[in-house]
């Protein structure tokens, strides 16, 4: 009995000593679970799977490989899931990963609804969330969070890029063909504001259901408006079918077409004879300079196509996150966010990019024009950079923001 008591006492003393020792070591170099775990939830099988999807996941893997697969001897792991464009799936997957899989940072691929849902979960769990391919500017405005970074572009930047430049080039009268849901309507509204601010007018708009089967009647209505510019506030398959029908019905000879959300994959599908002359705004193009070309070559070797701006952004975001973890020696959400926000981003994706207090990654955007078949020398040689839109002008300003963290 006595002996047991003494043993107990020794045990308690020992454990107290261990605890004290644990407290006295600085909480610096700590990588939770001894691995840096990156998760990515995106559309792998639906309408957005070409612009991000498996190509985007491959880009993240390239970043991990370039980092050497480990940080200070701690392994970097990567997992991917398909949200099937359903916000509820995205949110529950994110929750499961944070709680059970020990994911330290989550990349949200495409789809605004899914990203807004994931941002909420990440904020609750105090983990870094980087939204790449979703358009909605709400991520860093009304619904901003201290743990969200919005990386590649947003609807505001698209509107300011294409809208302002086309008005300045003489396209004063606009008519909109708009996808009838949150994304299309906010894109139309943002662009309308820009057009009016630059002295242009909007003659009207027609709202089509998402995934409409035929666009010819909408286009005839646009044609009879006699506007100079047809603004396409839709995306993906809707955009492709609108342009195809515009060409078939001879609209392209009378009106200028402005694509408000266009990815290089859309141009690849439609081909240059149909799309030549089209104006669009994008964050990145593979053939802009030596850095972009070097990275694109590596990507091409793996995927057999040129990367979209989103896939380049996936790489850049993962790389900058890993660099931040390496610099401060921890994957703690708050500390990594602080590090990310004070580090300029300089890589093949962005020059002098910075993450603002509202989470917006501000970088230059580019107004592109699609080349004519004669100008294009090779497959995927599609764009001419017409103008660079400085980041400060492209995104929501401090005066406009509704984000409390940036007031």
């Amino acid at each position, binding site marked *: 009995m006595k002996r047991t008591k003494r043993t107990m006492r020794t045990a308690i003393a020992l454990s107290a000593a261990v605890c004290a020792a644990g407290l006295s070591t600085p909480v610096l170099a700590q990588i939770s679970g001894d691995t840096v775990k990156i998760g990515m939830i995106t559309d792998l099988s639906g309408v957005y799977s070409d612009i991000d999807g498996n190509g985007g996941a491959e880009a993240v893997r390239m970043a991990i490989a370039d980092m050497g697969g480990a940080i200070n001897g701690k392994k970097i792991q990567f997992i991917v899931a398909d949200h099937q464009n359903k916000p509820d799936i995205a949110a529950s997957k994110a929750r499961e990963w944070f709680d059970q899989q020990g994911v330290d940072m989550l990349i949200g691929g495409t789809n605004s609804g899914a990203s807004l849902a994931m941002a909420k979960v990440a904020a609750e769990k105090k983990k870094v969330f980087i939204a790449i391919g979703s358009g909605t500017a709400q991520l860093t405005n009304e619904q901003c969070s201290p743990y969200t970074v919005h990386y590649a572009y947003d609807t505001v930047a698209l509107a300011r890029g294409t809208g302002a430049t086309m008005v300045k080039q003489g396209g004063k009268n606009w008519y909109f063909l708009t996808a009838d849901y949150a994304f299309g309507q906010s894109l139309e509204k943002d662009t309308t504001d820009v057009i009016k601010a630059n002295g242009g007018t909007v003659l009207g708009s027609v709202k*089509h*259901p998402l995934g409409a*089967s035929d666009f010819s009647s909408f286009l005839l209505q646009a044609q009879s408006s006699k506007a100079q510019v047809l603004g396409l506030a839709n995306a993906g398959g809707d955009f492709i079918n609108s342009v195809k029908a515009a060409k078939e019905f001879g609209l392209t000879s009378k009106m200028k077409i402005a694509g408000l959300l266009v990815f290089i994959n859309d141009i690849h599908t439609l081909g240059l004879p149909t799309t030549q002359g089209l104006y669009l705004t994008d964050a990145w193009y593979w053939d802009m300079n030596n850095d972009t070309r070097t990275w694109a070559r590596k990507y091409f070797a793996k995927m057999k196509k040129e990367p979209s701006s989103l896939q380049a952004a996936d790489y850049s975001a993962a790389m900058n996150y890993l660099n931040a973890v390496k610099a401060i020696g921890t994957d703690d959400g708050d500390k990594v966010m602080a590090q990310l926000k004070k580090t300029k981003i300089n890589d093949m994706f962005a020059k002098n990019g910075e993450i603002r207090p509202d989470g917006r990654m501000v970088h230059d955007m580019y107004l592109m024009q699609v080349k004519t078949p004669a100008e294009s020398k090779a497959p995927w040689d599609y764009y001419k950079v017409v103008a660079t839109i400085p980041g400060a002008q492209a995104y929501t300003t401090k005066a406009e923001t509704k984000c409390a963290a940036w007031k």
Partner: protein
Amino acid sequence: MQIFGVPLQAMMSQLLLGLVNGSFYAMLSLGLAVIFGLLNVINFSHGALYMMGAFAAYIGVTSFGLNYWMMLVLAPLIVGVFGIVIEKTMLRWLYRVDHLYGLLLTFGITLLLEGVFRSFFGVSGQTLDVPEALSGATDLGFMMLPNYRAWVVLASLVVCLATWFTIEKTRLGAYLRAGTENPKLVEAFGVNVPLMVTLTYGFGVALAGFAGVLAAPVINVTPLMGSNLIIVVFAVVVIGGMGSILGSIVTGLALGVIEGLTRVYYPEASEVVVFVVMVIVLLLRPAGLFGKSLA
């Protein structure tokens, strides 16, 4: 002159465009009606086979150097043969059980086909050019009608009417109809009923393939193009009356026109109007406009 605030010219062009879209509905719902009428199978894979027809045309033209006209014949044949394989190996075992099993099987086939095409081609889609002879547009006075769209209406009308004539007015059609009413009796007369059923299924899905080829130059060819359309086409079949051949043709064209008018007056509702019509028809005539009364 204006009709409810829309100029007459604009109205006429919208009606014509509605007719073009109606042609696709007519052709697809006709195939469904033939299959349902003679096999009692709800062929959910119809949309996927339509997609397959479009892809067959695309692959034939871009990879094998064939032209559009050859593919207009070849693609339906390929899809038809594929359908026959499905019928021979899987579908035939389900005739005796509930409709639901056929529906589930063909739905599974749809998912499978879409998945296979998606893994090869991605989802952005492929483009097939309008054939040389049909490019350009004709000035109709009230609108410029692309020649290809006119061809779509013509081709689908010919195919639909020929099908209707064959089934309703010829001896072969009479065998078919008799075979579905009482297969035992017709077999007793020395008619090979299983073969007839197989060929009917092949023909029905070949119609979907044909519609796919017709659609390929005007819409984005993607693995999901069938799923987008098939639900509307099912609604058309329900409105026309399950299994009614003439019903599906007339309803298909009429709904295309109604949809076209909606695009002018209330564009946001244009993808829903077909279902609104379906609800009204089901309330007033549960068997469909051309269907035999259920009672």
